[in-house]
């Protein structure tokens, strides 16, 4: 007989709880702290897998349309500001570094360092969104937001946009192909928009974590939450690392 049936007729002894003390952050349904950490980080990795599938749909669409409408994608890409894009990539990579340092600080139980790193990550996240806003507003001014107000002028008549024209000397696109630039910008807004949404969610969680960290929540060595959030933040960064060349760097070598 090895299965001990849970029956209320038998005296219920919470043996496990009486015999050896559990840390207060161990949830009752786990047998050990190791199991709890294992389970939660496995869950986080699975969640990141769902994120990959989520963006995977967008990357699939990108792949297809880029093959179909390559000239339109080149012309559309040249309308993006490489300066802002590169800067933002740098900002995001730096924020990944500060986040990684934050996890390390939590591991070695340095409360001050952790709070500092989280605040830096938070600020860099805001900076990223700020730059994104500048870029978006440029698109709105140029009527490059897909929809009712979309304008083909920059593509059918590139000289009308001297700033871009002086760098790349893009030829005017035929009206048919020019129309497909709207597909490029549809994907641009869908992909960067979904990425920005993930950043906003991340920044909100960071704010919550800063509040908790200041209250001394992660000084016990139990830092699963910080670690798992770090994974999330890095994965959002990695998605950007793919978005940047795919959207900004199409045929920039000319």
């Amino acid at each position, binding site marked *: 007989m090895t299965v001990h049936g849970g029956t209320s007729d038998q005296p219920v002894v919470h043996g496990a709880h009486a015999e050896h003390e559990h840390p207060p952050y161990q949830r009752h349904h786990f047998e050990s702290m190791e199991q709890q950490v294992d389970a939660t980080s496995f869950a986080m990795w699975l969640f990141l897998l769902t994120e990959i599938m989520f963006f995977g749909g967008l990357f699939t669409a990108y792949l297809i349309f880029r093959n179909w409408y390559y000239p339109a994608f080149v012309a559309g890409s040249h309308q993006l500001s490489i300066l802002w894009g590169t800067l933002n990539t740098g900002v995001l990579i730096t924020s990944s570094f500060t986040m990684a340092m934050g996890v390390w600080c939590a591991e070695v139980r340095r409360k001050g360092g952790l709070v500092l790193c989280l605040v830096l990550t938070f600020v860099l996240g805001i900076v990223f969104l700020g730059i994104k806003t500048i870029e978006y507003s440029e698109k709105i001014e140029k009527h490059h937001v897909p929809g009712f107000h979309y304008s083909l002028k920059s593509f059918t008549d590139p000289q009308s946009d001297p700033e871009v024209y002086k760098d790349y000397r893009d030829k005017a696109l035929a009206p048919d192909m020019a129309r497909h630039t*709207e597909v490029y910008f549809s994907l641009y807004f869908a992909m960067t928009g979904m990425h920005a949404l993930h950043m906003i969610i991340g920044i909100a969680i960071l704010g919550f974590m800063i509040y908790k960290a200041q209250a001394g929540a992660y000084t016990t060595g139990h830092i699963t939450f910080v670690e798992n959030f770090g994974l999330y933040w890095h994965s959002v960064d990695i998605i950007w690392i793919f978005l940047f060349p795919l959207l900004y760097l199409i045929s920039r070598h000319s």
Partner: protein
Amino acid sequence: MSSSTIVSLPDQSTARVPKVNFLTKENGLLSWLLTGDHKRIATLYLISITFFFAIGGVLAGLIRLELLTPQSDLMATDTYNKVFTMHGVIMIFLFLVPSVPATLGNFLIPIMIGAKDLALPKINLLSWYLYVVGGILVLYTMVSGGVDTGWTFTTPLSTHYLNTNVLSTGLAIFVAGFSSIFTGLNFLVTIHKMRAPGMTWFRLPLFVWANYAASILMVLGTPVLAIAIVLVALERTIGIGVFDPAKGGDPLLFQHLFWFYSHPAVYIMILPGMGVISEVISTFSRKRVFGYTAVAFSSVAIAVFGFFVWEHHMFIMGVSNYSTLVFSLLTMLVAVPSAIKIFNWSFTLYKGSITFETPMLYAFGFMGLFTIGGLTGVFLASTGTDIHLTETYFIVAHFHFVMVGGMLMAFLAGIHFWWPKWTGRMYPEKISQLAALVTFIGFNFTFFPQFIVGTLGMPRRYAAYPAEFQVLNVFSTAGATILGVGYLLPILYLTWSLKYGEIAGSNPWQATGLEWQIQSPPLTENFTEIPIVDHDAYDYEWLERKEKEVPSVG
């Protein structure tokens, strides 16, 4: 009775439902709404799913009533469009997808693997709330005018040509999708990390394997549906052009993304049901499931193949002939693991000591109807016949044989089978056997004629049809009435049994799963002490030895 049944109940004059159990542990609405207990969340799910099933069922009744006559007379054609769309949305996203995993899976998986709870109880509760929010959004859609895209949201119909509530329905599915993702994620983590000592992968009950496979599909497939819905929503609101052919977008791309989830979703629906059938067949033939390993791996194989067949929904939509060839072949390959299951269940029955309790009757119904549903699927996988049969009632009959004849039968089998464990009381056997029979007869009357009208060419999704199809449609509607009675009966007598059912004791079926070795209803923490497992699943000799050692506790 004694020779024809394996039911062994405690002495009814002295037995009582244990006073302390997960249902009675705490009282008050809040103790339910804020619970982390997987069994309570399963109960919440059971109630809400039954509610939405009833709504979906009423809509089905309206559809059949309209189709009683060839003219569109009960409702206007656009109302009919809304009714079948809402029927589809509710039945698929609010009933079939969560039905077995969120109720029985939630209740049983931790117990079956010897754990105290799912790995992430809060996420589990969140998943129920997301389900409820999704459900409320669907109800809102219904009362605010409905949606008439069909449950497939085909572009550009859904993006450009309709002024109905596509957005609220899309949001509902998006939210309910996250509920499904979290359930699947929770199961995967739990099965990987929470198994009791000695509970190796190949000692897991097949129900756990089946839910494991379905969870893989939920976690990997649902996000793709989510992004497809986001793109439709962006196209409807700000007017991006990914699916808009006027701008160079591709409406077919939507279908690729949609079916990349929605075909595997079919296996999300059916796999957990197959898990139920494995448990039931083994218990009521007193034999270990024949070819345990093959059945376990066939679940995983269905999940893997399931991801590579989606294009068979698009054979008539101008996709390349070469890819059609490949997808046709891959689709037929899914028949192999499905057949492995059916054959192995049949061999389990062979020379078993079979008894015909209600769950077993439903399981037999499942095996027969699922086989018909599966084989007609091969007709549709063959491109030649598919071109003739697609978008006809043949399709409707085919997927209702799999979903209603298969999945719903499995759901009812499971509910009856584990009812004593869940509530501590037995359902009334005679009337429930009758209900199983009524369901089976009603089902065949409803859907078999649809195979015939389908081959004759009656298209689906129309309120009116040529008069020569009326006889078969009358059959179908009459059958739906019988089917309705078949579903109403369990709701009535199961509710009745909550108070008046016989006391079940811990193991009324003399089954081997860990869930049958603890009291019914279980304690909140399931086990007073985490079990150490030293035997395979379905080891009836182990059970006999154990019963000799310790007289069963009433």
